[in-house]
């Protein structure tokens, strides 16, 4: 396991404690462990009202009428709003405004907002919701993606969010060994721990202040302003403490509702979702049905690849357009694939909307392509790890899109490093350590241990020509450094990293972070593994400009050469040269602060053409996972004992935080493999609670063994890649591969129900390909 040193790795040369590469602790750690950190649900204002949202119980219905009168008559109710009360646009949407803020003529999914109330007690608000009379004419929902593709339009924009092809090489090329299969993934939920919450306040200028937990303040701000009919500058968003996100807060949820209620009542309005409403109120990971056929030479070298990927996007578009692209572009995995035909489709149905979740399209296809790689290894009679090495992509190879990978992509290295990690000890004697654990189901003799391997990759940052940027500012005044950036801290640790970068560049111990709000330019979304690169890059650039100005100022004042000056421990000192210098930053900036405000961009990307070809992506990151599982085959119960992983990180900027990302991501991957699914009946979630939407507990997560493969990414600040997504991509297929090895069952669907693992009944065991 690689050691990550302290101090500079890029020649800035300050060697500051708590700088880049150290396990610097979180600045918000103290308040969080003491319960003093203010999450958005903890906010409070004098005279505050409680907002609540009425949601459709039907997956498809026409609204004949909405009578809010009985709700208004409930004592304590101050306002009831519907679509008719919106001064501006009635639609919102992350990328495309196709989703009604409140449904008015039709509802298209269970949970779609129809009205909202503001009252002086949450229980009063709940009773008022029950008093609203909505006359629905229930219609037949379309709940199957293939059916929706050929059926009548569910929305004026039609039912196809995206239908694309990626074609490369000779479509008729075939190798002698062919494997084929169909795979399914259920609907996973982000299930962040802190439900959606926000507090909206009217401002004296007729605008709105909204404190909210989100992933992207500025995008929310623009949507709120459009719907409220306000210029963007009169809508100010600040980041409330965010209790996790994982993609589920990229879309607007309560933002417009809370702001509208505050606008209408002219009072502060707080909205806090219950856990059930959280499940209804945010997008999920797209369920998928994926067909793949690979052909190869007898030695396992890939010749051709075909795939058809159908993603159910639910009722509204959210980020479906780009999830489809990711699924199609990375459908073959990180393997050299000379000939390919991939069809990717995202479909509108009357199911709950789906959008961003950690891994964003790569998760779905990785489950399929890794199952295929194992089938191919079996068909060629070669070792599954060797087969992956045979086909491993590297820098200089081309993606399915024809794009040459010109950055780092150490696929073979992560495979070898993962395979070399130590295996876990044999099972202990404690029943709590076995499958079934707390259920005391399983005796030692009932357990079969097996191992599975998987590799995955994904792009970092936005794609297809999106003009992505992040803004940051740095101010050095009287020796105090303040960094300002609107990047949403959702738990991932950007606040730690921003401090580390500022310490590193400026050679100071203390760095103050200004609150994240829309007063500064956009930092873009905390998604797509982009903030380390984009906002880390913006912070670095701002700090470097401040540093340059300080050096120039001291050089001018002292006559020292700029090249001889260093920033260390809060001082400007000379390192060689004729003029000795030793000045405190406090003295240098006592009279006049040094400030820099910057915009950071990555290199340009381009749209894909009709054959899915083009330089659409900025950078790629990969990881391999080896799962060791103990399975109780008779009951179909699984205990994931260990997941070993080597991950391509470029450079590790904070080993503690990076390890946390890996362990957390693997836990979500294990969850998708073994238990996590929003179960729908007639389009309605049947398990919108933590009683029945199960996420891993302490007794479900494996020991995680990590090795880092550090090949600096040429374009990235400090050479670092985002590390949040790869852990969730190939951990799922690794676990499933291990359970296949333990049981001999095909297991082509996740999550694997115990019934499927045990081979009982028709429980999603999956067809043979």
């Amino acid at each position, binding site marked *: 396991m690689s050691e990550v040193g302290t101090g500079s790795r890029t020649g800035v040369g300050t060697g500051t404690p708590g700088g880049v590469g150290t396990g610097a602790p979180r600045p918000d750690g103290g308040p969080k462990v003491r319960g003093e950190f203010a999450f958005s649900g903890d906010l409070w204002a004098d005279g505050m009202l409680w907002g609540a949202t009425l949601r459709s119980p039907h997956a498809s219905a026409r609204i004949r009428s909405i009578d809010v009168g009985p709700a208004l008559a409930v004592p304590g109710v101050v306002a009831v709003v519907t679509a008719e009360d919106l001064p501006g646009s009635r639609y919102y949407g992350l990328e495309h405004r196709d989703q009604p803020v409140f449904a008015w003529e039709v509802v298209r999914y269970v949970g779609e907002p129809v009205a909202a109330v503001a009252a002086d007690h949450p*229980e009063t608000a*709940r*009773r008022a919701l029950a008093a609203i009379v909505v006359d629905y004419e229930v219609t037949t929902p379309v709940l199957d993606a293939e059916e929706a593709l050929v059926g009548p339009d569910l929305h004026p924009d039609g039912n196809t969010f995206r239908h694309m092809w990626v074609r490369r090489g000779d479509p008729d090329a075939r190798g002698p060994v062919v494997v084929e299969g169909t795979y399914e993934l259920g609907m996973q939920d982000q299930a962040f721990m802190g439900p959606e919450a926000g507090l909206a306040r009217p401002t004296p200028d007729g605008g709105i202040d909204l404190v909210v937990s989100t992933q992207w303040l500025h995008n929310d701000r623009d949507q709120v302003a459009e719907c409220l009919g306000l210029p963007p500058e009169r809508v100010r968003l600040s980041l409330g403490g965010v209790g996790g996100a994982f993609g589920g807060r990229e879309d607007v949820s309560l933002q417009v509702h809370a702001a509208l209620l505050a606008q209408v009542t002219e009072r502060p309005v707080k909205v806090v979702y*219950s856990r*059930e409403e959280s499940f209804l109120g945010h997008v999920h990971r797209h369920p998928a049905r994926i067909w793949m056929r690979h052909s190869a030479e007898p030695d396992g070298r890939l010749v051709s690849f075909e795939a058809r990927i159908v993603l159910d996007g639910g009722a509204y578009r959210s980020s479906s357009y780009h999830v489809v692209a990711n699924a199609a572009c990375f459908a073959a995995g990180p393997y050299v694939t000379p000939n390919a035909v991939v069809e990717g489709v995202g479909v509108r149905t009357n199911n709950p909307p789906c959008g961003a979740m950690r891994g964003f399209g790569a998760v779905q296809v990785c489950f399929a392509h890794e199952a295929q790689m194992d089938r191919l290894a079996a068909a060629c009679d070669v070792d599954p790890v060797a087969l992956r090495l045979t086909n491993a992509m590297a820098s200089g190879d081309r993606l399915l899109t024809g794009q040459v990978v010109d950055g780092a992509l150490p696929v073979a290295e992560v495979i070898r490093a993962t395979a070399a990690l130590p295996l876990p000890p044999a099972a202990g004697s404690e029943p709590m350590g076995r*499958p*079934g*654990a*707390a*259920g*005391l*189901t399983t*005796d030692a*003799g*009932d357990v079969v241990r097996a191992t599975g391997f998987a590799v995955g990759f994904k792009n970092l940052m936005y794609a297809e020509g999106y003009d992505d940027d992040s803004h940051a500012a740095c101010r050095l005044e009287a020796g105090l450094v303040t960094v300002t950036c609107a990047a949403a801290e959702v738990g991932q640790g950007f606040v730690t990293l921003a401090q580390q970068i500022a310490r590193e560049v400026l050679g100071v111990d203390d760095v103050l972070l200004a609150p994240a709000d829309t007063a500064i330019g956009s930092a873009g979304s905390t998604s797509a593994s982009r903030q380390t690169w984009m906002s880390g890059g913006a912070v670095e650039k701002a700090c470097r400009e401040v540093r340059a100005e300080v050096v120039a100022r001291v050089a001018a004042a002292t006559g020292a050469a700029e090249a001889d000056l260093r920033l260390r421990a809060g001082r400007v000192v000379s390192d060689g040269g004729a003029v000795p210098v030793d000045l405190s930053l406090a003295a240098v900036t006592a009279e006049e602060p040094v400030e820099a405000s910057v915009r950071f961009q990555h290199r340009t990307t381009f749209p894909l053409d009709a054959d899915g070809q083009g330089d659409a992506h900025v950078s790629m990151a990969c990881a391999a996972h080896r799962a060791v599982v103990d399975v109780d085959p*008779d*009951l*179909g*119960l699984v*205990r994931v004992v260990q997941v070993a992983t080597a991950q391509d990180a470029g450079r590790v900027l904070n080993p503690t935080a990076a390890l946390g990302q890996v362990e957390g991501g693997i836990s979500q991957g294990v969850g998708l493999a*073994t*238990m996590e699914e929003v*179960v729908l*009946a007639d389009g309605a979630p*049947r*398990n919108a609670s933590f*009683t*029945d939407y*199960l996420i*891993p*507990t*302490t*007794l*479900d997560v494996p020991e995680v063994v990590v090795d880092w493969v550090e090949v600096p990414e040429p374009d990235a600040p400090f050479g670092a890649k985002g590390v949040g997504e790869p852990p969730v991509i190939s951990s799922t297929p690794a676990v499933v591969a291990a359970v296949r090895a333990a049981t001999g069952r095909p297991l082509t669907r996740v999550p694997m*129900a*115990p*019934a499927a693992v*045990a081979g*009982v*009944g028709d*429980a999603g065991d999956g067809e043979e390909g």
Partner: protein
Amino acid sequence: MDEVLLPTTVDELVEGRAAHPDALLLAGGTDLMVAVNAGTLPVPGVIALRAVDGLRGWRREGDEVVVGAATTYADLLAPDVADLLPGMAQASRTVGSPQIRSTGTLGGNLGTASPAGDALPVLVALGATVELRSPGGTRSLPVGELLTGPKRTALAPDEVITSARLPVARGPQQYRKVGVRNAMVISVASVALAVDVEARTVGVGLGSVGPVPLPAPDACAFAVDAVDWATGALHDPGAADRFGELAAAACSPIDDHRSTAAYRRHAVRVLAARALATACPPATGAAA
């Protein structure tokens, strides 16, 4: 009624219940407060059991243990009572989380009458009786007569559950429960087994596989013949599997979002076989 009654004696509790038959009877709150928080249960008034003297805890009376209705699962995990009621201790350990175990009560489990209640199959396997109090007096019901359906009991409107009476273990006991997660999970299927080597009887209770926790009389009768009572071992290693099949035959499970009927029946078969093979390991040595 628009208040919370905190009776301190059983008599006060009984009087309060008779006076306020519509009030919510609050034991540990692990089921009731979920509904209150969700707004699905009106709160016309509450009678809380927390402060009732003598309702929490257990005492031994001869060959029986009387467990107060407000006794928590955590209480039942204490070694002294776990030695007397090992099956109940195992069941208690499978309940929820430490937080749930320190609040959830035996009486609450009975009153809620969920088919998935983890204590209930043990009570069925042990042939426990439940004591009920009302202003009219005290009566005892076998647990199978108290539980009449999913979330339904034979409790009269003016009655409260005060205790359960369980026999002290006279032989091995087992409780095993399948869920879709390795902890903190509602039972998909569970099996309680109690072997009485003195009376030479076997009791079984099956959870989450019917409208109420179910007995399995055919399986029990089979087991009585399958055990060599002189040694406590199964005559035939294959008997455990046959026992599992008979237990599975006693189920009447349903399909729902947690599992399928077929899997539930299958799980009962496996769990019951393992329970018997562990409780009465075949004389040849290794369990089946």
